[in-house]
């Protein structure tokens, strides 16, 4: 399957992952830090539509995470009709947001409202899973894209440990993909982050990872 990547600079990814971070709450969780997690295995998330009323199309997809010894492989695919940039990430919440989480009640679940439920970014699903410079900030572009990346597990674990003070634990984590058509009318009330165009930061699918093997 053809993969199309689109450049976004690392700084944006880092801003997305750090914006809205609640330092107080992370300090409260120090007793839970570095708890051992059994991450090895295969995890799957069925990605289901969010904000589909904006386009009349119901995007769907899947995400598979395979961890075997010292390697992690993450694959996603999306079936959408908007050929746009699709920022995607694994986030550290445990449930997908819904329109019930549309706190400003403008009828659109924006990135701030979604992140309040789905959590901040744990792993950016870009061209560089391990956060290295090559491929960093390169996200898929297209409607029916398939994405697959492999990385050294210890590198990712270290990066996550440094950034979040927690070990990698994938069960019940949330996979989100963002990006609607540029032609989508969006009101002023829709929030975005890091100067991203609003249409690039609207969540379109979400799923929760469950261990299947």
């Amino acid at each position: 399957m053809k993969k199309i990547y689109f450049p976004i600079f690392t700084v944006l990814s880092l801003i997305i992952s750090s914006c809205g971070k609640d330092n107080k709450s992370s300090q409260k969780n120090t007793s839970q830090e570095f708890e051992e997690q059994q991450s090895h295995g295969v995890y799957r998330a069925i990605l289901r539509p969010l904000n589909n009323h904006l386009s009349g199309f119901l995007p769907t997809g899947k995400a598979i995470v395979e961890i075997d010894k010292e390697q992690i492989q993450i694959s996603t695919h999306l079936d959408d009709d908007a050929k746009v940039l699709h920022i995607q990430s694994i986030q550290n919440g445990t449930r997908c947001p819904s329109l019930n989480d549309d706190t400003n009640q403008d009828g659109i679940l924006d990135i701030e409202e979604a992140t309040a439920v789905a959590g901040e970014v744990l792993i950016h699903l870009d061209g560089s899973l391990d956060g290295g410079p090559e491929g960093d900030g390169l996200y898929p572009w297209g409607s029916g894209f398939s994405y697959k990346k492999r990385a050294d597990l210890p590198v990712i674990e270290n990066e996550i440990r440094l950034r979040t003070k927690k070990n990698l634990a994938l069960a019940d984590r949330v996979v989100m993909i963002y990006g609607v058509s540029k032609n989508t009318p969006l009101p002023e009330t829709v929030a975005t982050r890091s100067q991203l165009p609003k249409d690039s930061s609207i969540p379109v699918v979400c799923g929760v990872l469950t261990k299947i093997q």
Partner: protein
Amino acid sequence: MKYFLLAVIMMNSLKISAESISNRIYKIENGLIKFENGRVAFLKNGHQGLKSQDYIKGEIDNQSNLISFIKVNHMNSDPVKSFFFEENEYEDTFEPSIVSSLKDADEIFSRSNPHYKRISECSDRAHVWAHDEFKVSGTKSMKAFIFFTASYINSVRFKWWFHVAPMYKVNDKGNFKDMVMDFRYSDRPLTVKEWSDQFVYTKRPCKVTTKFSEYDVNPQTENCYLIFESMHYKIPGEIHEKELSWRLKTKTTEYELKASYRYAFDPK
């Protein structure tokens, strides 16, 4: 740098994108084409010589406008689309099973085969999910068909004219509820209203009917119609055939199921 980034995003957003379609036209209505697989496309310049039953290969832009097409001779009808009516089956004896609790309904939902293909039709997925469950537990289910009117499709540029999913009758502590299990689009069993709200953005309730013709010749005053049929019905044409001939679809053949499986699912 960020402004450069935004500029690049905007430039790429302007790229023309198109979706390929290869399907038979079910009907042309109010400036839109309804394809047999449920997809719709809008016609900007009249009928362009197209009519019902034409098989076309074409491209649809991201606003669902048909931007190019060629008519194709497609003599072989899709075997899945064939009807499987038993002779002299004029009496409806189908009774759906009662699922004994919402917890059991959740378990049925979680057993749904997740290995559906990206490009697959809802009718095939629903058929396989319903019959897989019947094979596992003997539970007989219904199918919930939702039909969107041309006026609704036009008003929100909706991309489909019908959709179908398995539906189970569930005993929720003495209250019997119809729960739709649309594994691809929802993360749990939904009431019929919750399910239809996913597609009907006005949240207006769909009119429940037993006759496909009521939808087919509707005066465009509704957003949508609902028809509930037994698990054996797969596509709208079968519901229409039932109304026209009074013959019922009372079973599903293994051949039909295998075809649906092949079209819609990857081998596990």
